[in-house]
């Protein structure tokens, strides 16, 4: 049996319990009192009887004694007046005995009474005998009977029995007295206890009931407070909250609901809602069907989510879209008792969505018209965008591409080793733009390969987190062809130009050398001029080839760590005899300590040769000094001459293409006008610069160029740049 807690019992029950308990106590007390009173009565009557019995037996004895005395008197005197008690005695004896029997309920006592009766009867019989004897025979006969003592014996026996009887009665009396006392005490006790108990019970009941009432009141207060709070919460919500009962009548309309709808709680049935609140389907014209309202659907257990309703009524300035979700309200047994709906104003969101669609359509239109293939990937490398050009280039349709990892359908691989090219996409997905490596090819759906180029860029979100990558690519078959043609053109052109020129030069040289026999003196000069012109032509072609290569980025640089001294020294060796020819001094001042530079030795050689060549050309007297000074990150090499110098107007023209300094050209072998331009481009490609430090007419000029020192940060940058450029144009010459 479950133990009941006091608190779990209802208030009514507790009140009843209290009253019943009190009642029970009273009844108990009453019953006990009544029972005790009966007992008391019995005890009292018993005592009375016993006392009466004592009296009666005493009376009897006295009577008997009286009779005996009477008898004695008669015997002695013969007077019949003494016989009066004896006459009455028989009757009185019976009466007394009857009385005694009534008064002695106890069996032992009754036996005694019976014995006493018998003895008394015998005594009377004896007395009668004695009396009769006196009457008839006289005194002496009667005296003789008395003297037998039989009468006395009877009296003694009677006395003995009576004593015992009296003793019994005394005992009984004492018992009854004690009993009475006990009973009385008992009754008092019970009554007192009863009073106490009922007081306790009633007091407890009062206390418990009061406590319950207080608790109840407190609970009620709390409930009221909670309700108030809930109401506050409901009304502070920004979402509209409405509750309807089973009939579809509104029972709750929070503040937001009223604000959003413009109209408050109306006690109308659902089929009137559309009209009264101005609810339409998203098409803005069809009134919203009553059975489709989420609130109505929920009543049937159909809990709808995000149902869109257009609202426009007199109270609202402009129409708005709301998104409604409905839930059923159920009781403890799961039966639907009503429904609740929550809704939001989504007009802004819908506007944004419409705008977004428009933007998206625009973007898609733009993408569709771009000639390059464009596709975008999400962070899982799945294709989320694939424009028309991409479809055409790859042969895969948008449906085939969308949603799939790009590696499923697009195979970018290197022409060189056939290995997949995916670095540029992976780099983009890490957050940096990257170009496809040169010689990237793509396999179309039908298996045909096409050369492709371009790049991948990351798509960044609002917090600059990578959300994907966009790849742009195009078929570069034509471009590659063009490049090849360009290269071929340049090579072929230069080769073709050089061939006849070389031949002319060779012939003229040989004629002048006398290999075709002695030369007519008159012909020496013109032949020499021809040779000069030829040499110029050759130089021009070489220079133009170099310029073309540099401008196309197709000049190959092989930069390594080199000792600068060795490179410069080699040039000095070649130029010294030429300087000697013109009787000019040529000095070389190497750096204080041997220094390593990052350079293409051939190119440095070429540049210094060009500068020294110029110096020699324009210096008639004095000398040329080449000095190399190591600075922090680079080495500065200067070429100082004591030649003609260059005016300040002419200095800006120095490094331009085909610019010849107008003055002071007579008698000097003309240059191509490309030398300094080419030299500067070469030096710049290797990370340095070439410039004129100063020059003054008739004083001389000082040219300087820099070469980066090996193992410096600058050197690293140069190497990286050159490597990058080499990867884009691998066919460098």
């Amino acid at each position: 049996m479950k133990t009941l807690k006091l608190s779990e019992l209802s208030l009514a029950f507790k009140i009843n319990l209290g009253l019943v308990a009190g009642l029970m106590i009273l009844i108990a007390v009453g019953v006990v009192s009544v029972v005790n009173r009966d007992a008391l009565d019995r005890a009292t009557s018993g005592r009375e009887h016993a006392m009466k019995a004592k009296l009666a037996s005493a009376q009897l004895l006295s009577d008997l004694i009286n009779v005996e005395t009477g008898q004695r008197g008669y015997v002695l005197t013969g007077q019949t007046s003494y016989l009066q008690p004896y006459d009455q005695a028989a009757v009185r004896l019976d009466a007394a005995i009857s009385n005694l029997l009534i008064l002695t309920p106890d069996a032992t006592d009754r036996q005694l009474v019976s014995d006493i009766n018998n003895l008394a009867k015998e005594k009377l019989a004896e007395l009668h005998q004695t009396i009769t004897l006196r009457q008839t025979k006289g005194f002496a006969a009667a005296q003789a009977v008395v003297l037998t003592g039989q009468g006395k014996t009877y009296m003694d026996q009677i006395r003995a029995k009576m004593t015992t009887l009296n003793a019994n009665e005394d005992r009984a009396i004492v018992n009854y007295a004690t009993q009475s006392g006990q009973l009385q005490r008992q009754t008092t006790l019970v009554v007192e206890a009863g009073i106490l108990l009922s007081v306790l019970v009633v007091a407890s009941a009062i206390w418990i009931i009061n406590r319950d009432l207080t608790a109840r009141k407190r609970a009620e207060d709390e409930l009221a407070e909670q309700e108030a709070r809930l109401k506050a919460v409901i009304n502070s919500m920004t979402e509209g909250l409405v509750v309807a009962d089973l009939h579809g009548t509104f029972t709750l309309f929070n503040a937001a609901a009223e604000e959003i709808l413009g109209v408050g709680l109306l006690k109308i049935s659902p089929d009137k809602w559309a009209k009264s609140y101005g609810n339409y389907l998203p098409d803005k014209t069809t009134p919203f069907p009553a059975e489709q309202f989420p609130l109505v659907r929920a009543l049937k257990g159909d809990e709808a989510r995000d149902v869109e309703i257009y609202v426009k009524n007199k109270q609202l300035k402009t129409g708005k879209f709301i998104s409604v979700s409905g839930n059923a309200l159920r009781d403890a047994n799961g039966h639907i008792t009503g429904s609740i709906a929550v809704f939001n104003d989504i007009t802004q969101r819908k506007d944004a969505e419409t705008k977004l669609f428009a933007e998206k359509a625009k973007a898609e239109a733009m993408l569709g018209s771009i000639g390059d293939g464009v596709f975008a990937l999400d962070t899982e490398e799945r294709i989320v965008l694939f424009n028309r050009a991409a479809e055409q280039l790859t042969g895969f349709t948008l449906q085939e591409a969308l949603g799939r990892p790009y590696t499923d359908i697009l195979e970018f691989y290197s022409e060189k080793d056939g290995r997949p090219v995916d670095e540029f996409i992976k780099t983009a997905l890490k957050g940096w733009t990257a170009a496809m490596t040169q010689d990237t090819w793509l396999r179309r759906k039908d298996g045909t390969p096409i050369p492709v180029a371009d790049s991948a860029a990351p798509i960044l979100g609002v917090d600059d987190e990578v959300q994907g990558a966009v790849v742009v690519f195009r078929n570069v078959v034509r471009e590659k062809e063009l490049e090849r043609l360009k290269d071929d053109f340049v090579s072929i052109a230069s080769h073709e130009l050089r061939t006849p020129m070389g031949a002319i030069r060779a012939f003229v040289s040989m004629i002048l050398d006398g290999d075709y026999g002695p030369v007519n003196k008159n012909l020496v000069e013109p032949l020499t001029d021809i040779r000069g012109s030829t040499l110029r032509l050759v130089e021009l072609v070489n220079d133009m080839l170099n310029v073309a290569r540099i401008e196309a980025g197709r000049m190959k640089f092989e930069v390594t760590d080199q000792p600068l001294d060795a490179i410069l020294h080699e040039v000095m060796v070649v130029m010294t005899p030429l300087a000697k020819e013109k009787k000019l001094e040529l000095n070389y001042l190497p750096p204080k300590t041997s220094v390593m530079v990052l350079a293409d030795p051939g190119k440095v050689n070429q540049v210094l040769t060009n500068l020294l060549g110029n110096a020699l050309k324009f210096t008639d007297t004095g000398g040329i000094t080449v000095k190399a000074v190591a600075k922090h990150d680079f080495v500065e090499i200067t070429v100082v001459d004591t030649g003609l110098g260059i005016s300040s107007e002419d200095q800006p023209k120095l490094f331009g293409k085909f610019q010849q300094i107008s003055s002071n050209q007579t008698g000097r072998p003309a240059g191509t006008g490309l030398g300094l331009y080419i030299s500067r481009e070469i030096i710049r490609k290797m990370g340095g610069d070439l410039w004129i430090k100063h020059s003054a007419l008739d004083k001389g000029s000082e040219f300087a160029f820099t070469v980066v020192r090996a193992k410096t940060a600058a050197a690293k940058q140069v190497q990286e740049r050159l490597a990058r450029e080499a990867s884009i144009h691998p066919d460098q010459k």
Partner: protein
Amino acid sequence: MKVLIIEDDTPYRKVYTRKFEVAGYTVETAEDGVKGIEKARSFKPDIVLTDLMMPQMDGFQVLDTLKGDSNLKDIPVLVLTNLSTAEDSQKVLQKGAVDILVKSDTEPQVIVERVNELLDQK
């Protein structure tokens, strides 16, 4: 000393032939690679001078063939060309040529001196 000149351009052929004859060499010429190999086998020159850009068989192939023939591989080959790419130079030297000179940039005399040098070394 015998020198074989493989050159498709007639002026060059003529001028170099003249130059080497004046310098005292016995000269044979061929105007393309195929004829050049034939001549090499029959003439057994001490040195071969070859152009690169030739029809039918270019200088590279000539080099390969010469170096691939056990009878001819020891003959030094000097490449004369008007191409001047670093890659070509490397390629030629890798294939076993002893040197490469740009015709338009080089005096005929210099070529003769170079050949003298190369043959003296032997």
